């Protein structure tokens, strides 16, 4: 098993002392027919080796756009990055040349997409698509690439890999396809994997298997993992810390268990309350009122204020910065932050 991905190991980077990835004040906007949509409005986060960051949010919250900006796969135009830095091992990806950037993609930072069926090329065999990683980045021969592909498929526990390497994506089940996506991301042993809703398209039973596999491989290779999801249930077991996004901003960050135990932002609170729970059987399920904001016209002040049960005048006027959150007794809570003027009150409610 340990020899599985040895081919890539020679290029493996030395451990980096600081955070592997640091996103600083990132802004992304899209030109649309109706104006400029502000998809990401000043996002900050860091991921270190071996760490899992879960980014949580509804569709349109900017979580995926941030990931695509990191990968450098946004279509520009219509997308534009007016401001911000994305530091990978201390180097700003946004200032790199095209070729330099390409070498990082797939090799150092890899991405797993949601819908493996449409994300894999329908007319090329999975072996070809896996092998491409070695051929493009390592100059491997055809035969070598095929051998590596079989090893990779074994590694993600696809049965009868040798026989199936020439099959096409549509011939695999949803779970197996997602394993192939994972194998592809893992091929060159990157430092960092971004998984964008990796299990959303799968059946619940398969979801757990795929998630476990991902977590296991991440631990084994000591990679950083950014897990993008809208599903609170998925993150609880695997994430170390969580960033909750709303309207292109991070509204709350916290170590995973603290967030569940005591949310410090009304939006997070609303999300947690809207999970069905067995002990509340028979009661009406809580739902956050209103709709996600229009990205062309984000409300002034805190973007969540029209939907917030706690909104005051200040929320309509001033954009709250990410306040440091301390525990109820005043002791500092490292890693916790909330972009709510009333984080203390929200915390006390719990």
């Amino acid at each position: 098993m340990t020899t599985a991905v040895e081919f890539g190991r020679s290029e493996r980077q030395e451990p980096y002392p600081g955070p592997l990835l640091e996103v600083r004040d990132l802004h992304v906007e899209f030109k649309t027919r109706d104006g400029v949509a502000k998809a990401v409005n000043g996002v900050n986060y860091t991921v270190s080796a071996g760490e899992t960051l879960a980014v949580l949010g509804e569709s349109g919250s900017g979580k995926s756009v941030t990931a695509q900006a990191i990968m450098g796969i946004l279509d520009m135009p219509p997308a534009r990055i007016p401001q911000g830095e994305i530091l990978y091992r201390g180097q700003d990806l946004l200032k790199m040349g095209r070729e330099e950037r390409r070498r990082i993609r797939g090799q150092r930072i890899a991405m797993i997409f949601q819908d493996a069926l449409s994300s894999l090329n329908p007319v090329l065999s999975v072996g070809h698509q896996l092998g491409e990683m070695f051929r493009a980045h390592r100059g491997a021969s055809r035969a070598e690439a095929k051998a590596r592909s079989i090893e990779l498929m074994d590694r993600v526990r696809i049965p009868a890999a040798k026989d199936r390497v020439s099959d096409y994506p549509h011939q695999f089940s949803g779970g197996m396809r997602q394993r192939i996506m994972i194998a592809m991301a893992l091929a060159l042993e990157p430092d960092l994997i971004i998984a964008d809703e990796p299990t959303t398209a799968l059946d619940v039973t398969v979801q757990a298997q795929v998630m476990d596999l991902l977590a296991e491989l991440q631990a084994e290779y000591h990679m950083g993992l950014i897990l993008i999801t809208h599903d609170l249930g998925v993150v609880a077991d695997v994430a170390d810390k969580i960033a909750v996004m709303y309207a292109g901003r991070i509204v709350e960050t916290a170590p995973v268990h603290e967030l569940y135990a005591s949310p410090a932002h009304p939006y997070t609170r609303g999300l947690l309350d809207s999970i069905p729970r067995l002990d509340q059987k028979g009661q009406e399920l809580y739902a956050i009122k209103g709709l996600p904001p229009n990205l062309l016209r984000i409300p002034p002040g805190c973007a969540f204020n029209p939907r917030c049960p706690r909104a005051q005048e200040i929320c309509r006027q001033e954009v709250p910065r990410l306040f440091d959150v301390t525990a109820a007794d005043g002791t500092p809570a490292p890693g916790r932050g909330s972009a709510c003027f009333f984080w203390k009150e929200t915390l006390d409610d719990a």
Partner: protein
Amino acid sequence: MPDVHDENDPKPLPPPGSGHLDYVGNQGLLVEQDTLIEPDPAKREEARSLWGDAWRDLRRQPIFILSALLIVLLVIIAIFPGLFTNANPRQANLAKDFLRPPDWTDFFGAGWWGYDGQGRSVYARVLYGARASITVGICVTLAVTVLGGLAGMAAGFFGGWVDSVLSRVIDIFFGIPLLLGCLVLLNAFTTRTVWTVVLALAVLGWTQIARVMRGAVITVKQADYVVAGKALGAGTNRLMFRHILPNALAPVIVVATIALGGYITAEATLSFLGIGLQDPTISWGVDISSAQKVIRQAPYVLFFPAAALSVTVLAFIMMGDAVRDALDPKLR
């Protein structure tokens, strides 16, 4: 596109509504945002309907505006050619006007674009020739849309043996090239008018729309809202005309608009070959054919009807293109 075969249809149709709406893909993202943008309920209503959206889109498209204006102008010329000239297109003065070159100062006059080999005003003949082209184009399109539309709808909606029989009939007509079939058919008539030509083109040309309609109905039939309608006990007529037809119409309209230009070309080609329109009907195709003999001495006799024909076809094709782009959300 090639032949579309009933149950063997090899082209996988995407399930309805499978546009990449939910996750971020290059363009998928914009679609995703479109659904989030537009908080104002009144405006959202407009944006959510395919037709409303398409219309909003079309009004801003210069290509659409240009082609619409051209078509309006052509239709006016076709109905009232006399508005644009006093000259008589059939008046021939061989002695005086044989191949008299254009007189560029004679605006809107008989001699503006010169005279043809029989001493007739080219300008007047081009204007009066519009009627045949436009009539054939519009009437054939209407006829094939009704004929093909009904056949395709029946085949797609009822399926089973109805579909098998209709599909074979469609295949049979499809197997005979349109132009060739029309030549054979029209050759049987010694006197041919606009209506003979319309008949021939419609009888042999309805299959294209039938295939498109059949495909569209089958796709729509599998859509969740139609299944839901059925489950709720909606009757056959109601299902067909309230739920399926409006949603299957978009591709039919697109194909019909583009085909209209094709029918105009077909009429001109038949007339050019001498098996289409004949005197006294004035046809660009016939005029282009007779201009062939004098192309060396008087190229303008060929140029003007040819240009008129091309511009007319162009107008309808541009219109079809614009409508397709507007109705096909995939291409946004």
